[in-house]
């Protein structure tokens, strides 16, 4: 009768001396795995977004959260005149990254996406561009 009680308290007692599993967030931040699917980023090459506006990401997106509008630049090439991801709808499945034929889209380890208004969750091309 008393044995299980002591066993239970033993576990509690052991944990008192172990390193805690919980984090004192936000003071402490978790170590994020390299393949974590966080905020998207538009990769940059030669000072330009690599994205060619092929529309494969909005096509594959199951949450329909990506809006792309292609434009024609001075060299008649295709570029994303508008690239927006609505993070409120995004389910972070990463299909968009997988679908990208030119490796223009990636997902970062940024997970702190809280904000104050709905509009702030719509990430425009400027906000998504890779920071260097």
């Amino acid at each position, binding site marked *: 009768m008393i044995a299980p009680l002591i066993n239970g308290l033993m576990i509690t007692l052991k944990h008192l001396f172990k390193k805690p599993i919980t984090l004192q967030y936000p003071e402490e931040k978790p170590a994020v795995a390299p393949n974590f699917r966080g905020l998207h980023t538009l990769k940059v090459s030669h000072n330009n977004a690599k994205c*060619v506006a*092929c*529309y494969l990401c909005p*096509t594959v997106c199951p949450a329909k959260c990506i809006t792309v509008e*292609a*434009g*024609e630049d001075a060299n008649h*090439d*295709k570029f994303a005149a508008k690239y927006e991801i609505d993070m409120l709808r995004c389910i972070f499945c990463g299909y968009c990254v997988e679908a990208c034929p*030119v490796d223009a889209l990636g997902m970062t380890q940024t997970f702190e996406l809280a904000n104050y208004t709905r509009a702030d969750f719509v990430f425009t091309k400027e906000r998504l561009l890779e920071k260097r």
Partner: protein
Amino acid sequence: MVNLTIDDKQVSVAPEATIYDAAKAVGIRIPILCHDKKLHPFGGCRMCLVEVEQMKGRLIPACTTPVSEGMIVRTMTDEIVKARKLVLELLLLKHPLDCPVCDAAGDCDLQNLTFEYKVEKNHFTDEKFRWEIDYENPLIERDQNRCIHCGKCSRICDEIVSFGAYSFVNRGIEAKIGTPFDEKLDCEYCGSCISVCPVGALLARPFKFKARWWALNKVKSVCSYCGTGCQLTLGVKDDKVLTTVYDEDQGFHNGQLCNRGRFGYQFINSEKRLKTPLIRKNGSLVPASWEEALSLVTAKISEQKSVDASTVAALVTPRLTNEELLLTKKFFNGVVGTDSIDHSAGYAHAALTEGLKESFGITASPSEITDIQKTNLLLVVKSDAYETHPVIGFEINLGVKRKGVDLRIVSDKSGKLTKLPDAKKYIHKPGAELLLVNALAKTIIDAGLADTAAAGFEELKSALATVSIAQAAASTGVSAELISSLAIDYAKAEKALILLPIGLGYPGHGKDLAQALANLAILTGKIGKEGCGILVMGEKNNSQGAADLGIYPSAGGRNAGAIIDGCASGAVKLLYIVGENPVVSYPDRAKTEKALDAVPFLVVQDLFLTETAQMADVVLPAKSFAEKCGTFTSVGRNVQRIRKAIKAVGQSRSDKEIFAELIAGISGAKVVTDAAELFKEIAATTQGYAGLEFDKLTDAGCVYPVALSPRLVPVNAAVPAAEEGKFALLTGSALYHCGTLSLFGEGPMLVCPEQYLELGRSDAAKLGIKDGDTVKVKSAAGELTLAAKVTVRMPEGVVFAPYHFEAASINRVAIGAPVTYVSISK
């Protein structure tokens, strides 16, 4: 019939069929890249290789090999798959893998076949092409690097469009599709080449990068420009019509479109569309609510109605659907009680509503568009038939080139049709067509080739007794021999068809000319049979419907001309204009402007703030054809459905919704606006439409039957007296435009943006005018400064100007006569 076996399936096909056709007939798909059902077999791509038991040892191209009795064909063996894979590998060796930025992706035959045959690696390596991409012309982007040399573009341009803008140039690896002298593409810009290109070598620039093919919602509808009634598929995304999508199985024309049909869709989502009703307050038009606008219109009409309903008049565009025309007619005839309702300036529908009505007892053409390819002799009045109805022009090209149709063109100028192989042209003096046709009838009667039992024969004979062929030859400028040979050939042809384009630009193509032509057909018994008769080609998408539904005065009301005069004289107190743009498109602009200025209350219901709408007291925004359901009736009496593709732009309402509200406001009666319900009423009350059902109208549409009661009607002909030292100004349609609607389409405006005056080389030389110079054109009605276009097709002393343009509108000079005499100076 030939019997053969394909993949163990028994097939029985016509002897001229190929293996490809036979396989298609039993639902076996053979992959193709260079083959097109509309074109002659080419056999260039080798994708359609099949195995034939009797020809073992090599693979046989299915698209070029005719069937023979007892053939045993296999379409899918390991060897065939290997051969097809090799073909694809060789194509992909040079074809760039830029599918992510290629607009053809998703609709690309090469991409689809590569996926289907799992071509994942290539046995070969080579550099890609580095041809310069053609961005010179405004509508067609030509990227030779993507070209797979199927030759479809050059073949369709040659065989169907009959323009010949492309052909293969160079040899071997250097071979490419070139333009004459490798210069900038300068063609009709119909875009047929884009539609058949199996890859992304030819792309529509207005649609470039706008959306991916798979993201487009495809809505089948009918073109809203000319009366041909071409079916088209609208590519819609996010409630915007972004393009027209090619569908080779649509309509008699197999999905072929002209420049305005393919590239002129931008008016639908144009920035210039009216978004709200406008009311004139303190001299300027200000946005208003529908309630305010409609109550004002209702009050004004009620007020006029209580005084004298005949002071209310309406001009209605034949671009509305049949259902809307029905409600329009109901509103003005029934509710308001005025018979002064008309369309197309009154004269542009007279050939049908007055001419054919007397000659045949119907207000429609007795023939269909499909008769063009079935006839033996085709008599086209005015080479402009190609410009007014370009896709009917394609049918003429096909008839002449494939079926050996004997083409005769009676015209006041040359044109594209006169250049067709073996086409015989009869260039007459301006305005002399009627006399020429009468001379033809006279010749037929004199030669004893006429059906003397035809109703009205004696009257016609005595009326034509005064016509002398020699005199007619002198006045028309066509020699007596030519007149008699044309008449005899026409009479002796087993089947003969007459084409007559009508429209606002052709005041001479009215009642008399239609009757004179009908006389020819009746005299020689060329009616009521396949490939025979007369096809009067209404200008607008629903011109035939407007004639069928009686959008013209029938009980002594004012016609369009009288309405304009009535406005000026004060007899018309309230003018309601639905979609028409009389300021620009009606003859004598100064007169029209004065009349619209004078009318006390002007209501305009339109898509845009046109020159006419700018003069209005109330402007109501209407919906375009892409925002509503209904039916259009085309030239050949084909009743076809249009389908709603997008939501209303702004606060616009369809014309039937507006009229339903007005009817409710004035009479209190509630009317349905459902297209199917309204169509029921049309079927019950309109000649020919009996038995048609809205929901049973198939994709092909339905040609309603006509019962003819032919009667010869004598027509008096006089050639307008030429004025010494002056030029004969002819108005008409430009190839790229239709009415004034195409001014809001991007494609037409990119290739034909402004008013011009076309004159012949010798006249230009005499006046010292070069192409592009500005010239002064002066008539009794007014004066204009226009850009000159020097061409080879205009006879001496004759100039031509299209009537579509707002700025420097030729109707400031033209007065609505078949010929306006003008003086031209530098």
